[in-house]
């Protein structure tokens, strides 16, 4: 019997507003406990929520980016339950009418391209945190409450159960993660809990149209854990059913240390949240003009940009994907490209300057700069080499001025990364005397010297050993400390050998 896996994801994205969704307190991460909790956040008697329009604007931006419907009128409700990190005894969340309905996310996996439909995206407030560790000795048996996070705006993005494997679920989560950062609504820092996924997982016989009973895996905050959690859960459910059991609807927690999911609460323990419209907040009304303003502000989206790169610059899909993996990478690439095009008097070796420039820049950004970023565990937005500086360097390389060889250029990049000469490629080349020797007379003289000093190798070459030629090229390059133009060296050497 073959099994089909069905997965839907609910993702809590913390919106990148500076203040909270219903109060003026800061949302910055990492402050000492309870220093960013206002009277509203700690739910003093008599305080009232006031909606942060920045959070709404981010929700609109998301809705537009996924092609969803922005509801002109949506309602905030109260979700009632008791917990120490929930100061009001209820969470304000959109329930019956969310701000965004529908929309979709396109994912790419080894299986190809697929569209995952979205059910909805709604605004709500985050809860505080219960601290069980790091308390003083005297308080070691107690639970600490930190309300700094309480009231941080969340957009909960709910997908349809459209994914059929852990791979698709991860692709969805990663695409969504890229998108929310791309459109600037979420910082996406998963360690800080900016982006948290709940996965609804069920299995059924292939061909069944009815969904199996699902389990919800709560609050997984890394892609790797999400993958492991889903894979474990799929194995568990299949095993259970094959052994004659049935899956119970329940909420499960993933334990990364033991790589397993564990039951947290069953359907019987499910709470009645007694949702009702929050009388403190009038319905959220969004007019067409607001939507239009947000639309005008929306950047080119990654899917569109990737397609454009493939079409305009003839990129392979892998390169286009790499360059659109984050907005910062795309911005860096495009800025470097613009800078390069602005450098005067560059000779082009290829027919289309756009394609030539783009190909070079893509190579330098993805491979060469990418290696440094990788080695230093840093993001492109923190690169010590600016797009203008990188363009300056690229202009010296083979396809363009040809002032330095590719190998030397990589050394120059290392110097730029280290801040040598203020990261100025021109200055480094001059200071280090790296300028390529392209003077035919000068190269010819060195070639003559090399031929004269290496008679046995020359003899080997003349006897038909092609390898001997490379050895002679190496001798010339060594004599010039790598500065000679390699193609010139090749041509002059051949010519002199044939005539000698």
């Amino acid at each position, binding site marked *: 019997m073959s099994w089909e896996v069905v997965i839907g994801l609910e993702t809590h994205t913390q919106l990148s507003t500076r203040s909270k969704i219903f109060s003026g307190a800061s949302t910055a991460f990492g402050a000492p406990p309870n220093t960013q909790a206002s*009277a509203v956040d*700690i*739910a*003093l*008697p*008599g*305080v*009232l*929520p*006031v*909606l942060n329009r920045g959070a709404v604007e981010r929700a609109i931006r998301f809705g537009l980016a996924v092609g969803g419907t922005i509801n002109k009128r949506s309602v905030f409700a*109260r979700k*009632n339950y*008791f917990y*120490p990190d929930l*100061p*009001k*005894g*209820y969470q304000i969340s959109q329930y019956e009418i969310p701000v965004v309905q529908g929309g979709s996310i396109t994912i790419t996996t080894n299986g190809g391209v697929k569209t995952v439909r979205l059910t909805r995206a709604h605004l709500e407030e985050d809860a505080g945190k219960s601290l069980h560790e790091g308390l003083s000795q005297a308080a070691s048996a107690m639970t600490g*409450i930190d309300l700094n996070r309480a009231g941080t705006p969340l957009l909960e993005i709910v997908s349809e159960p459209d994914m059929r494997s852990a791979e698709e679920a991860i692709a969805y989560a990663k695409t969504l993660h890229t998108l929310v950062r791309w459109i600037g609504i979420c910082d996406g820092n998963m360690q800080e809990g900016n982006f948290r996924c709940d996965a609804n997982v069920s299995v059924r016989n292939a061909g069944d149209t009815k969904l199996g009973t699902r389990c919800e895996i709560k609050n997984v905050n890394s892609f790797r854990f999400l993958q492991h959690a889903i894979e474990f859960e799929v194995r568990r459910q299949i095993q259970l059913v094959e052994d004659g059991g049935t899956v119970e609807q329940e909420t499960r927690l993933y334990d990364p240390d033991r790589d397993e999911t564990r039951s947290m609460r069953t359907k019987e323990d499910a709470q*009645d949240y*007694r*949702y*009702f419209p*929050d*009388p*403190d*907040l*009038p319905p959220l009304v969004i007019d067409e003009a607001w939507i239009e303003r947000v639309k005008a502000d929306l950047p080119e989206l990654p899917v569109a940009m990737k397609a454009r790169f493939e079409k305009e610059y003839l990129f392979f899909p892998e390169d286009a994907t790499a360059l659109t993996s984050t907005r910062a990478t795309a911005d860096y690439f495009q800025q470097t490209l613009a800078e390069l095009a602005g450098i005067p008097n560059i000779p082009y070796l290829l027919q289309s300057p756009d394609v030539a420039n783009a190909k070079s820049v893509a190579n330098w950004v993805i491979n060469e700069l990418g290696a440094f970023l990788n080695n230093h565990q840093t993001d492109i937005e923190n690169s010590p080499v600016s797009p203008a500086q990188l363009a300056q360097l690229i202009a010296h390389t083979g396809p363009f001025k040809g002032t330095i060889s590719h190998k030397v250029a990589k050394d120059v990049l290392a110097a730029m990364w280290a801040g040598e000469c203020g990261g100025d490629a021109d200055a480094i080349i001059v200071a280090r005397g790296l300028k390529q020797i392209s003077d035919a007379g000068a190269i010819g003289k060195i070639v003559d010297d090399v031929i004269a000093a290496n008679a046995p190798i020359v003899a080997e070459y003349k006897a038909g050993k092609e390898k001997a030629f490379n050895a002679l090229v190496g001798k010339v390059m060594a004599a010039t400390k790598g500065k000679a133009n390699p193609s010139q060296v090749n041509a002059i050497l051949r010519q002199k050998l044939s005539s000698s």
Partner: protein
Amino acid sequence: MFTAPIAELAPALASKRLSSVELTTALFDRIDALNPRLNAFLARDRKRALGAARAADARLAAGNASPLTGIPIAHKDVLMTAGWKTTCGSRMLENFVAPYSAFVVERLADAGMVLVGKTNMDEFAMGSSSETSYFGPVKNPWNVDYVPGGSSGGSSAVVAARLVPAATGTDTGGSIRQPAALSGVCGLKPTYGVCSRYGLIAFASSLDTPGPFAQTAEDCALLLNAMAGHDPRDSTSVDRPREDYARLLRAPGGAKPLAGVRIGLPKEYFGEGVDTDVAAAVDAALGEFRKLGATTVEVTLPNLDLSVPVYYVIASAEASSNLARFDGVRYGHRAAKYDDLTDMYKKTRAEGFGAEVKRRILIGTYVLSHGYYDAYYLKAQQVRRLIAEGFQHAYQQCDLILGPTAPTAAFKLGAKTSDPVQMYLNDIFTVAGNLTGAPAISIPCGFDRNGLPIGLQLQGNHFRESVILNAAHRYQQATDWQRREPADIALETAR
């Protein structure tokens, strides 16, 4: 002199015939003498009040005073008052000192009013008799065997006993108007949203409305001028141009000052269940309004009989959620001993809340529960809309709706505490005003066979406070019910 209304005290203060310090001192002497028998104040602070009085006198001397500068006031203990214990009449907040002030508290302080203390009330404003307070019941100054009404019974009592010329209250189902009626003073419930709810400890958020108590409608207008205004901290606060609520009162009246005013008489307000003395007093008042030039028209308010059940569903639903924050975690009462988190919640709330509050939380939790929501909460909201439509229809035919504020005058302490439904029916004429959000005033219009005051309610459409206040003021110019004072001797007898 010290027991005069604001409109008489203010000119005396302005002309330096009287200082705020003198006035405050005299009233504190009265408070010290009479409050032990009324239990109307939960907190009072002579020293702090005299400090405020001195500041007010300085402001009066400097010539930058408002019409309320130097006038003593008391706040219902449901309003957050910075540096003052704010208990809501509950053990839950017995030792809670407010770290900030409610919007209306701030506004009245900015106007230069002298805060003398906080008034007793039904616990969390749930009640119609001021008997559910953890700190003991408030007594009616006209006869201390009787209740003063509620939930703002402390505020109505201190104005009735002439301990202060003004007090604040909050009205969720009649909690300003009903105690005003039973205590023989004026109480105004403004339009929902005119006075910010910021700092009002929420009972039922869609109904809670702060408003003033005073001896006269004119004083209520002066107080409302200071209390009203847009507040960005309350999303339900209305943003309207500033209005002088006393402007119509200053217009020359003539013999028929209410000519052109159409008074609607809903037959629902004059039927069974209204005490005969109350009915007679309201009839007599109606005669006065006709003499003042008003015309009358019969109107109907369909579904009005449903307003009490609708109110108790909606108010309790909101209360069950609003009171969830009193969980013993961050402030307020926490049980001394408990086994675990759930036990801490249970014991804290079992000890901290009184019986009436628990009853409402249970009702509210029930009507919001899965499977009951549609039948109770949703249905109640639908009927609420129908009731509001009924009023809108009536206001096409009239400017004001007149009737009794409550079906009877004050009842004896303990008379209704064992029968919550009888207690709830006290609100029959007042709750609709909260369901619709429209303004209303209660003013004294006579006494019953026991010598207890009777209240007349004037309701108007949204934002028609000035019309209501003007009609009440013209009536008070023609009559003198508002000048009657409970004899201190009555209080003396009960000692």
